[in-house]
């Protein structure tokens, strides 16, 4: 557990399969991120995000466990934080409500990528 990561956990009223589609299908993902998204949700796959406020991000998919875990490193091409890479890890598990989604965004992209590669 990183002391410095942003962590969020939410219960969602849908099964893990549906939530998985929401986080990996470009159009579904773009809908709730409010961005134009192109994401190839496979290990080594590329991603591109264009947000409503004009921010553009590129991504590299690090880790995929279908239906359960998606990890990608992303970095902005625009704005004050340009080039600042962070790693987002989303895990999904069944819960009473439907699914529990846990999201971690860590600023230590390199460390996390290595940890993922080892794991």
């Amino acid at each position, binding site marked *: 557990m990183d*002391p410095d990561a*942003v962590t969020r956990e939410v219960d*969602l*009223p849908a099964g893990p399969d549906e*939530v998985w589609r929401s986080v990996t299908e470009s159009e579904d993902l773009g*809908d*709730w991120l409010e961005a134009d998204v192109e994401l190839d949700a496979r290990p080594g796959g590329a991603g591109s995000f264009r947000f409503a406020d004009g921010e553009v991000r590129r991504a590299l998919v690090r880790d995929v466990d279908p239906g359960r875990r998606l990890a990608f490193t992303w970095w902005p091409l625009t704005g004050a*934080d340009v080039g*600042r890479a962070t790693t987002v890890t989303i895990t999904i598990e069944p819960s009473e409500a439907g699914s529990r989604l846990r*999201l971690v965004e860590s600023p230590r992209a390199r460390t996390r990528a290595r940890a993922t590669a080892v794991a």
Partner: protein
Amino acid sequence: MTMGNDRVDAVFAALADPTRRRLLGRLSQQQSATATELAAAEPVSRQAIVKHLRSLDEAGLVTPSRSGREVRYALTPEPLEDAVGWMATVGAQWDRRLARLRGRLEAGH
């Protein structure tokens, strides 16, 4: 909010170590201290303390100043505000996004 690209990373890396967090705590209680003074209360060598102080310096969290033969370190906490600001901004973004995801799934999309 202004954030150097690597600086916030360096701050987080610096804070990940318990010895460095203790050193920051000690420096917050006094104007400045030397590596020797700081090492006196730590179970590690002065050399190890010097290395930790170098990491803290690279993160901008301490500033060394030479007085005579000794180097004194003072806390410069501004980078902490950048790091906390990053967490607050990114956290608020995800709160909004995840609320939209929930709303979308509730609506049955």
